[in-house]
């Protein structure tokens, strides 16, 4: 168990600057998730932490040791690979025991640890099998087992669930979370799936083009994204965006585009006034758009035409076109709503949850 510290971490390949000035303090026992689209540098960061990739510049500390020049085996970490990387010629038992054998643990202790881990993961029956005789989910467990028998200071996970089918992925996600609660080992988890990131992470690190965009607890990222990228990346279905023009008529600040005219709530009005006459990006999450009722003030409603209806059972997603514009907005509404395609409806937004982004920097306003 240990904290991990990354200071001004950089990785450059010949042409590509893969990781840029990453500064991250991962606390002891924390489960931290690096998330971002492919090529964002998350896996490279993890591999530098593992010692599988050389560090171009910067420092990595595990516990109180600077590990830049330590080979992987001396870093006291264990990693679960995307394709599991189980040794195909060894049994499950030998796969799990290999790391302990290499570290010259006494035979009895190896046996004890492997049995304990196997029991924890429910794979006692599989110990004599070879990896190719296992299903995807079982291999995944063995890969996790191989990591936990070592009792390392830090667990590293490189997209460990991406080769599993959707149902199994949800199940393993829950198990990994339970496992972490039980073992209380610092964990660094890389994924491109924002749902995994949100559900697993104590804190989530969103990366793009080698830069860290935002670090925060899942709900904080969701409610207060610092820029348009994070706003659009976190959440499913994604946040709606529209380009709007800011107007200030007699102290009332409005955001307008074709078919959309919304009154900006007082909390944001002050900051937005500076953008008067300019175009900014407006964002609202699907669940913050609802069918308007009499209680909604006129300044927060707009007319729309339904284009697609996606009933999901617990909710319905309405893809609508706002007014006469080409702007499409997705609204997440109650399953009791009976709107049909081409219906004209009146929608309202939740004034507390409107997002505005600077047109140039894309930073939240």
């Amino acid at each position: 168990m240990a904290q991990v510290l990354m200071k001004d971490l950089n990785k450059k390949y010949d042409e590509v600057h893969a990781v840029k000035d990453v500064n991250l303090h991962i606390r002891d026992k924390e489960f931290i998730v690096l998330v971002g689209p492919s090529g964002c540098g998350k896996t490279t960061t993890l591999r530098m932490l593992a010692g599988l990739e050389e560090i171009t510049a910067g420092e990595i500390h595990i516990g109180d040791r600077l590990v830049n020049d330590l080979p992987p085996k001396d870093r006291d970490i264990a990693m679960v690979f995307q394709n599991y990387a189980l040794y195909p010629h060894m049994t499950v038992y030998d796969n799990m025991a290999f790391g302990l054998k290499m570290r010259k643990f006494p035979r009895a202790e190896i046996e004890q640890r492997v049995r304990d881990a196997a029991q924890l993961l429910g794979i006692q029956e599989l110990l004599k099998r070879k990896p190719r005789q296992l299903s995807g989910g079982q291999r995944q467990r063995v890969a996790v087992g191989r990591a936990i028998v070592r009792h390392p200071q830090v667990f590293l996970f490189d997209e460990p669930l991406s080769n599993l089918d959707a149902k199994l992925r949800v199940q393993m996600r829950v198990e990994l979370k339970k496992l972490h609660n039980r073992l209380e080992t610092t964990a660094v988890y890389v994924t491109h799936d924002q749902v995994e990131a949100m559900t697993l992470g104590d804190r989530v690190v969103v990366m793009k083009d080698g830069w860290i965009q935002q670090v925060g607890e899942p709900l904080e990222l969701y409610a207060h994204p610092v820029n348009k990228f994070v706003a659009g990346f976190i959440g499913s279905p994604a946040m709606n965006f529209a380009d709007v023009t800011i107007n200030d008529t007699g102290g009332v600040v409005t955001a307008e585009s074709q078919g959309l005219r919304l009154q900006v709530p007082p909390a944001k009005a002050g900051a937005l006034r500076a953008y008067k006459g300019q175009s900014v990006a407006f964002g609202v999450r699907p669940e913050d758009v609802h069918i308007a009722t009499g209680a909604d003030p006129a300044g927060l409603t707009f007319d729309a035409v339904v284009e697609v209806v996606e009933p999901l059972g617990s909710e319905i997603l309405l893809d609508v076109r706002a007014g006469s514009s080409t702007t499409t907005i997705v609204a997440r509404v109650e399953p009791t709503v009976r709107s049909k395609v081409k219906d004209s409806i009146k929608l309202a937004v939740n004034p507390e949850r409107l997002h505005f982004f600077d047109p140039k920097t894309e930073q939240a306003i």
Partner: protein
Amino acid sequence: MKKPIAGGSARVEVLAPPRTARRGGAGAWLENERLLAAMLLTPTVLLLGLFIAYPFVMGVWLALSNTSVGNVGEFVGLRNFYKAWNDSIFRTAFWNTTWYTAWATVFKLTLGMWLALLLNRSFRGKRIVRASMLLPFIVPTVLSTFAWRWMFDPTFSVLNWLLYRGGFITTKLPFLSDGAYGMWCAIAVNTWRGMPFFAITLLAGLQTINPDLHEAASLDGANGWHRFWNVTWPLLKPVTLVVVVFSIIQTFSDFQLIYVLTGGGPANSTHLIATYAYQVGVATGLLGEGAAISLFMLPVLFVVVWLQLRYLRRLEA
């Protein structure tokens, strides 16, 4: 509506007869799977029969007869085999062949593996190095062996010159004119020639190993040697066995190299089964005895191949 349909079917009727007629000819032949299979197999069977089966059966017959050049022999049973077995030169040749094969295979495997591991790394000019590696293998054996013979020449030997100038020796070494040296020279040349085959094949095998396994092993605390011994070697074993089987077959029946390099000399000390069989059968003209000598290779190779294939099958099960 009816008319076009009627017209359509009428047109089909007009076209139908020639088609069925063609079907009845070559078309029907090709439709018959048995017949087609037989037709496709015939050329191969003929070629194999002419160039493999016939010489083999002929060789067995010769070995059981006292045929010599200009004399159609008659059946003499196992007399040729008995004679060969009691021939001290044959015994030397048999022993030489085993020795030559064993050491050459060990060297080729060790050096080939080492080279494959080196070439499996990333470095500048990787492709050109990998391609040029094959040179010793693709140069005709006779040509390259002639070059080696020149290098081993007692008087003009470049090797002797280098060793002498380098101060390693004070008298020039009799590379090929001393039996003990001669055999090791032959093993060296065979290793030089056969190593690329090992290296390229093992390299192909290495590239099928998922690099993640090495990364996992290095995180598991394995150093370079442990990674080789616990990951690379077990996963490479099937490929290695196949290469070794091929190599043993080729080396055990080697002829060209010895024939060009030493001709079996000095004093029969570097004869292999193949070169001795040639000397007895063709040079001396005792075709029956020569055939018997060469047939001694068969049971040895059969056992080697059988053992290794059995092991391979168990490995894959």
